[in-house]
C-alpha cells in the first residue's frame, strides 16, 4: 500500500505533527488481552463483582420494568445497532422506525409533534424550557417542585444564559402548587406528572389555566408509562411535554438507558423551536411508496430575542426505536393494564408500609405512581434502615434525608414483595 501511495513509511503521513508535541514513548497502558477468551475472562472477573438486586425498591428516574424479548431482539439487530447517518434511501428502515416511534409516542401523548430522542429526560426538560423561552421571549421560568435535585442542577446550568429559574417546592413548608401565582414575565411553568416524589398533583389542570392566562407556556414532564391510564398532559393544557423513555422497554444499565422526548402541538411557533431532528413522511416518485426525511430543517427563530438554538448531535435514537417496539407490543390494552397495576400497587405499598410502626407515608392521601415517599419516624435514619434492609436481601429506596426515602414499585413487583418489605420493616423501623 505504501508503494501505491508513493510513501516510504507511515511516518510521512504525520509530517504536519511537530516533533515537539509527539509522544516519544509507547502509551503506558496494561498489556493487551489479545484473545477473545482472555478478554472475556478479564471482563467476567469484573462483572462478577456486580450483583443485580434480587428485590429492589429503587426508582427515582431509572425504573425496573419488564423488557419484552422482542424489544431486545430488535435492539440487538446488527443493522440497527451499527447504522448511523445514512440517507433516507439506504437507511429507509431506520427513518421509518424512528418516524413510527414519534407517531406511537404521539398517540400516547396526544400530540402531533414528537422529536427523535434527545439524550435523556434531564436534557429534554432543559431544552423544553429554552424552547418556551424562545417562543415567548420572556426570562423567568417557574419550576414547581418537588423536582429531582440532579435534574434541577442540569436545568439551571442549561438555561442559565437566558433564564432565571425560580423553584417552588412545598415539600417542607406546606406550600401547594395550587397556591401558585403566575406573573406576566413568566416564560414557562414547569411541573411534573408524576413529580419526583411520585405524586400526581390535583392542581395540574388549574396550573395550565393560570399559565395561559398570562401568555406563559405550560411545560409538563411526565412518565410515559403512566399514560395508558393517566390523562395526557396535552389533554389538560400542556403546551410542551417532555420526559424520559427509559421506562418503555429500555434496560436500566446502571443509569445508561435513559433517553429523552419532547412533544408539542403542530404549531409553527413551537415546531420552529425544536433543536432536535423531526422526521416526516413523504411520497416518493413511485405511487404507494413512503419516504421519510427531516421536517422543516432550516428552523429559524424569528422571535425578537434569538437565543442559541442548541445543537443537533448523536443522542439516543436506538432507544427510541426500542420504545416504539415496546409500545407496539403493548398496544392500548397493555398500556392501560400496566398503568392500573402500578397505580394499584403504589397505593397498596403506601397503605401497607404506613401501617408499620415507625413508618409513615406522607403522601398516602394523594395519588402516586411508581415512586412514593416513605418516612421513618423511629430511632433509625433512612440510611440506617437501608443498610439493615440490605443485610436481609432487600435494596431499599433512594435516601432523601435523615427521615425520608423514595421507594418505588412497578409491574415487576408482586403484592408479596411489598408484604415482605413490610415484615422486615416491622423488625427494624422502630
Amino acid at each position, binding site marked *: 500500500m505504501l508503494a501505491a501511495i508513493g510513501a516510504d513509511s507511515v511516518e510521512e503521513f504525520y509530517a504536519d505533527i511537530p516533533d515537539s508535541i509527539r509522544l516519544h514513548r509507547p502509551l503506558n497502558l496494561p498489556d493487551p488481552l489479545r484473545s477473545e477468551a482472555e478478554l472475556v475472562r478479564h471482563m467476567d472477573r469484573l462483572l462478577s463483582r456486580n450483583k443485580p438486586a434480587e428485590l429492589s425498591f429503587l426508582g427515582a428516574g431509572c425504573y425496573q420494568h419488564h423488557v419484552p424479548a422482542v424489544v431486545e431482539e430488535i435492539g440487538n439487530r446488527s443493522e440497527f445497532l451499527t447504522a*448511523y*447517518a445514512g*440517507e*433516507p434511501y439506504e437507511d429507509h428502515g431506520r427513518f421509518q422506525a424512528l418516524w413510527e416511534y414519534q407517531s406511537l409516542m404521539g398517540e400516547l401523548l396526544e400530540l402531533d409533534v414528537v422529536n427523535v430522542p434527545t439524550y435523556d429526560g434531564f436534557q429534554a426538560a432543559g431544552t423544553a424550557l429554552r424552547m418556551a423561552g424562545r417562543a415567548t421571549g420572556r426570562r423567568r421560568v417557574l419550576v414547581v417542585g418537588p423536582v429531582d435535585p440532579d435534574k434541577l442542577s442540569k436545568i439551571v446550568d442549561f438555561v442559565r444564559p437566558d433564564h432565571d429559574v425560580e423553584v417552588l417546592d412545598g415539600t417542607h413548608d406546606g406550600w401547594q402548587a395550587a397556591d401558585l401565582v403566575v406573573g406576566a414575565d413568566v416564560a414557562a411553568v414547569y411541573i411534573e406528572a408524576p413529580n419526583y416524589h411520585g405524586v400526581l398533583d390535583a392542581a395540574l389542570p388549574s396550573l395550565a389555566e393560570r399559565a395561559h392566562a398570562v401568555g406563559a407556556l405550560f411545560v409538563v414532564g411526565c412518565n410515559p408509562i403512566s399514560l395508558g391510564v393517566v390523562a395526557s398532559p396535552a389533554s389538560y393544557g400542556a403546551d410542551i411535554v417532555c420526559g424520559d423513555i427509559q421506562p418503555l422497554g429500555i434496560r436500566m444499565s446502571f443509569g445508561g438507558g435513559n433517553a429523552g422526548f419532547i412533544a408539542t402541538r403542530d404549531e409553527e411557533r413551537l415546531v420552529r423551536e425544536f433543536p432536535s*431532528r423531526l422526521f416526516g413522511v413523504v411520497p416518493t416518485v413511485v405511487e404507494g411508496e413512503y419516504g421519510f*426525511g*427531516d421536517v422543516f*430543517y*432550516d*428552523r*429559524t*427563530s*424569528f*422571535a*425578537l*430575542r*434569538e*437565543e*442559541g*438554538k442548541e*445543537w*443537533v*448531535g*448523536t443522542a439516543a*435514537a436506538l432507544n427510541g426505536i426500542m420504545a416504539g417496539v415496546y409500545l407496539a407490543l403493548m398496544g392500548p390494552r397493555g398500556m392501560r393494564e400496566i398503568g392500573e397495576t402500578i397505580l394499584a400497587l403504589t397505593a397498596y405499598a403506601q397503605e401497607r408500609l404506613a401501617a408499620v410502626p415507625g413508618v409513615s407515608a406522607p403522601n398516602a392521601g394523594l395519588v402516586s405512581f411508581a415512586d412514593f415517599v416513605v418516612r421513618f419516624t423511629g430511632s433509625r435514619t433512612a440510611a440506617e434502615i437501608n443498610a439493615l434492609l440490605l443485610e436481609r436481601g432487600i435494596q431499599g429506596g433512594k435516601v432523601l434525608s435523615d427521615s425520608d426515602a423514595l421507594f418505588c414499585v412497578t409491574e415487576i413487583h408482586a403484592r408479596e414483595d411489598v408484604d415482605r418489605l413490610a415484615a422486615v420493616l416491622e423488625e427494624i423501623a422502630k
Partner: protein
Amino acid sequence: MRVGLVVNPVAGVGGRVGLKGSDGAEVQERAFALGAVPRAAGRATLALAELRARRPDSVVLTVAGAMGEEAARAAGFAPEVVFAPGEPTSAADTVAAARALAPQVDLLLFAGGDGTARDVLEAVGDTLPVLGIPTGVKMHSAVFAVNPRAAGEVAATFSRVREAEVVDRVEGSPQLFGYLRVPDVPARVQQRKTGSSSVTPDAVSGIAAELRSYLAPGELLVLGPGTTTRAVAAVWGVDVPVLGVNVVDGSTLVAADASADQLLELVAGAPARIALTPIGGQGFLLGRGNQQLAPEVLRAVGLDRLHVVATEAKVVALGGRPLLVDTGDDALDRAFPRYVRVVVGWRRTILYPVNERQS
C-alpha cells in the same frame, strides 16, 4: 414554466485574449482580431440543455438569431421568437428584448457579463426573477449562477427569490448599480448527518438582534446599502431604500438615502455606529456604491464603531477572498484592522481578513 432567454453574442470575447470585458465595439473588434471566439451562445445552450433535462415541459421565449434562438434550438427547444434585433446587435437590443420578454415569462435568463446585467436591470428592474448564465470573464455582479449548467438547474428547481447586486466596472473601478431578483434554491433537504448542527440559520433576525445589542439608547445606526442591511431594518419594522445609505435609531427611520453632508451632520449631533454588508460576490465593503460614507463620516463615527454584517452563506461564498476597502483616503484605508468581525448571527461573528483597495 415559461423561460425567457437573451444572449449577448459578444459577451466574454475579451476574456480569452486578455482584454477586460467586451464592452464597446472597439474592444470587440480587437478581440475578434486577436482570434476570440464567441462563447455566450454555447454556454446558453448548456444551461438550456440542463433545464430541458430537468423540466422537459419548459417553454422558451427568446430573441431571433444569435441573441438566443440559435442557442435554444441547439439545446433541443423549439423556441418562440418574440423580438428581432438590429444588425450588428447592441446593448439597446438587449434592453428592448428583455422588455419584450419580461411580461410573458416566469423567469428571464440572460447570457452575458456585468454589462449585460446592467442592461437587464435597466430593462426589467425587479419585476420578475432574472438569472445570469456566466460567460467566462470575471464578473463582479452576484446575479450569475456558478456555471452554465447550474443556471439551468436553478431555473428548473427554484422555489424562492432573493435580491442580488449588479456591479460593473466604470473607468476601471467597480460600482454598484442596483439589485435584481434572482432565483434561490434552498439547501437540499437531505444529506443531513446526525451530527450536523445548523449553527447559524441563514436569516437576518439574529444579525438584527446582535446589532441592536450594540446600540446604546439614543445611538444612531447608519446602515450601508445592501440586502442584508435592508433586511435588518425590516426586522425592526423599518423600510429603507435599497441603494442608499440610511440612518435608523433602532426602530425608526431617521434619514433615508442620506448624502455625505447629511450623514456628517447627523453623526456630529449624536453618537453613532455604522453597519455595512459586503457587496455579494466581490467583497467590497467601502468605496463601491456607498460613497456617501465619506472618509470624514467614517472618521467622525470611528472605525471601532463600524460593524460588518453578512449571512454565513454570503461569507462562505466569498471563497476566502478578503473584504476590500477603498475609501479614497489612503491613511484611512490603512487604519482598517487586518481582520474584522463579521456579524453572522446572534452572538456569532466570523473573523475575516480585510485588504486595502484592490489594484
